[in-house]
């Protein structure tokens, strides 16, 4: 009898927590924090969202740890940036053995669907061009208007999984889209005086951002995407920046600031560390906050440079 009680207690300890939780909430795992923030905006209190990568982590290189597979094992939905940004994701979804999130399932969402992409390579491509993304630049979430298209994809997934809450999700999405649109209009107005300012970025992460807010990216610290800078490349970048009078270098927090600082010291430019993702800097805890932070930092820097830089 005692043995029976002990056994049943053990079993209940093992199983009860898993039954008790998550009965109504949809469990979503996203690859990046930006997708997490947008999923939370749409899912509201009916979703429970977790991101695999941290905001200050390079999303190209995330370790495919078995502990991530355990997270995915219990997920109802998986959202990824796509365009071959997360080459590590397939190992994780397969390793999770969770059919609900296999490619093609309702719970598998590629957020890039229907997004207008930039820099789709044409013609002969190979790796002599560096780590190029054959389907287009994957940093599309850095245009706030693409956030709306991403939410549309998330909405589709959530609606599939919980049709009874479709109206709730749609309302959430539309409210957030409206905030986003209002905010974008403000950001554009604030950036207006600095239109066409030339900048250099570390990695080619910012084409969508630059296009939306009227910046001109004229060069990169990396000679080719994913390839570390050589002295010869930096020398030519320095002369290019001097010629074009580039005064700002934008870098992501996960790169070494050695090369940007060197270039800055030779050109008098400023190095500005901007988070490309939610959670990449202190206080950046929502999708809107990400742009608010980056726009403010940029304007601060431009103003420090004495107004508009030609």
């Amino acid at each position, binding site marked *: 009898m005692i043995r029976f009680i002990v056994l049943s207690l053990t079993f209940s*300890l*093992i199983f009860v927590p898993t039954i008790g939780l998550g009965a109504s909430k949809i469990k979503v795992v996203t690859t990046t924090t930006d997708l997490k923030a947008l999923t939370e905006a749409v899912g509201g209190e009916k979703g429970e969202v977790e991101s695999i990568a*941290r905001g*200050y*982590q*390079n999303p190209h*290189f995330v*370790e*495919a*740890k*078995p*502990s991530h*597979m*355990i997270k995915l*094992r219990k997920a109802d939905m998986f959202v990824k940036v796509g365009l071959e940004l997360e*080459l*590590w994701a*397939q*190992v994780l979804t*397969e390793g999770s*053995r*969770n*059919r609900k999130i*296999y490619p*093609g399932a309702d719970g598998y969402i590629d957020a890039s669907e229907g997004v207008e992409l930039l820099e*789709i*390579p*044409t013609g002969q*491509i190979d*790796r002599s061009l560096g*780590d190029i993304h*054959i389907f287009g630049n994957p940093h599309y979430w850095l245009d706030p*208007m693409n956030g*709306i*298209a991403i939410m549309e994809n998330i909405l589709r997934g959530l609606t599939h999984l919980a049709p009874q809450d479709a109206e709730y999700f*749609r*309302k959430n999405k*539309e*409210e957030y*889209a*409206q905030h986003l*649109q*209002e905010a*974008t*209009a403000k950001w*554009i*107005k604030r950036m207006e005086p600095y239109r066409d300012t030339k900048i250099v970025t570390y990695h080619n992460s910012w084409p969508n951002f630059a*296009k*939306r807010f*009227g910046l001109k990216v004229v060069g990169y610290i990396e000679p080719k995407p*994913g*390839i*570390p800078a050589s002295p010869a490349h930096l020398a030519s970048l320095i002369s290019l920046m001097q010629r074009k009078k580039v005064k700002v270098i934008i870098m992501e*927090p*996960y*790169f*070494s600031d050695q090369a940007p600082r060197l270039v800055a010291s030779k050109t008098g430019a400023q190095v500005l560390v901007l988070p490309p993702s939610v959670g990449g800097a202190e206080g950046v805890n929502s999708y809107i906050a990400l742009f608010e932070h980056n726009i403010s930092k940029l304007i601060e820097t431009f103003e420090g440079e004495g107004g508009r830089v030609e």
Partner: protein
Amino acid sequence: MRIYLYLFMIFIILVSILGVSPLKEFSWGEQGKVKPIKDQDKIVILQHEISDLKKSLKDMQLVIEAQQAILDELKKDLVQPPATPTIQPSPRDPDSQAASKSGLPSLAALNPNISAIGDFTGNMSDDERSEEGDRFGFREVELGFQAAVDPYARADFFVATEEGEEGEIETDVEEGYLTLLTLPWGLQAKLGKFYANFGKINRIHRPERPYIDDPLFIKNFFGEEGRLSSPGVSLSSLIPNPWDKYMELSVEILNGENESSFAGKESDHPIYLAHLKNFFDLSDLSSLELGLTGATGFNDSEGDQRTTLEGLDLTYRWRPLGQGLYRSFIFQTEALFNQRETESRNINSFGFYSFANYQFSRRWYLGGRLEYSEFPSIDIDNEWGYSGILTFFPSEFSRFRLQYNHIDRNYEKDEDQILFQATFTLGPHRPEPF
């Protein structure tokens, strides 16, 4: 005249872009019960887009004017009207443009991921009898084909072309297996020829191992090929546990083809193998993996003498999340215990290696390896190995490595080796199992 035509066409295109895309983008705002987006904001965003378009329109106008000027020049030069009509601007066929944009014809997109890895080595040894000798070797070209077979399974093929003993070229299917992904209860099955799930290093393909040669115990117990592998089946499952940790149990049945520890090609008794993999996150930056393996089979073709192997593997990994591109550390150790029945007596032998690798910049790694091994059927001979390894990655797809080995043997004289390796990869290659 023509310039007006151009401008008109551009105007039409502009109108259609401006007229259609915002509607498409924000159409939900109208059907919803939520109040529509404030027009002002929409206007600001659109204004911005329009001014972009205006600018590119201006650029195009300049180009057109310049072209018109050239055309006029040419016309003036031609005293007589040309027999053939003047060059007509051929309107771009939107379909052909779309096709070239997508880049790939549709069937090519269904090709599996194809990769080729070249593994070039150089070897210098102070031992005259050393098998590798003082020479270069093109150890292997490994071709990989990987893709989903259908919604239920994926397939992985690795074919290696290797230099044989006489210098002839041998082709060998290193791995070729089907993985069933959608079995009930979260089970996964592998069918075909694959590297047995014995410890950690046995499953890693040679060009991707973190050192040039194979650890001594792998060589001694699994053969010069450097692996335990044969046709068979594997079934694996994640074990649910109250701590919510990764625990994977795999059970494999393989042909007893291995000649070093088991009976070899003519054996009709299989090897039974079980592996338990445990993974713990110590923090966001570091993790620990502990694996246990047991394998048993016969070492004679009659099936009278049993060999049992036990394996223990431990891996500690550290990589900072933010600056993970520039720093990392791994410590890995594996041990193998062998109990072999022979006609005369039972042999108990043992081998292990410990390996540490530190990444000190984006492209450089420095590593060391300490190892010890006895032999499957001899327990009085042993060898100790001491290695230093320096690795340089110009990119993810090419790698140069220099390694120094000192091998201390109790049955013949010591040996010093210097090894060099260049590994280069074409095409997409799936990451090795973590």
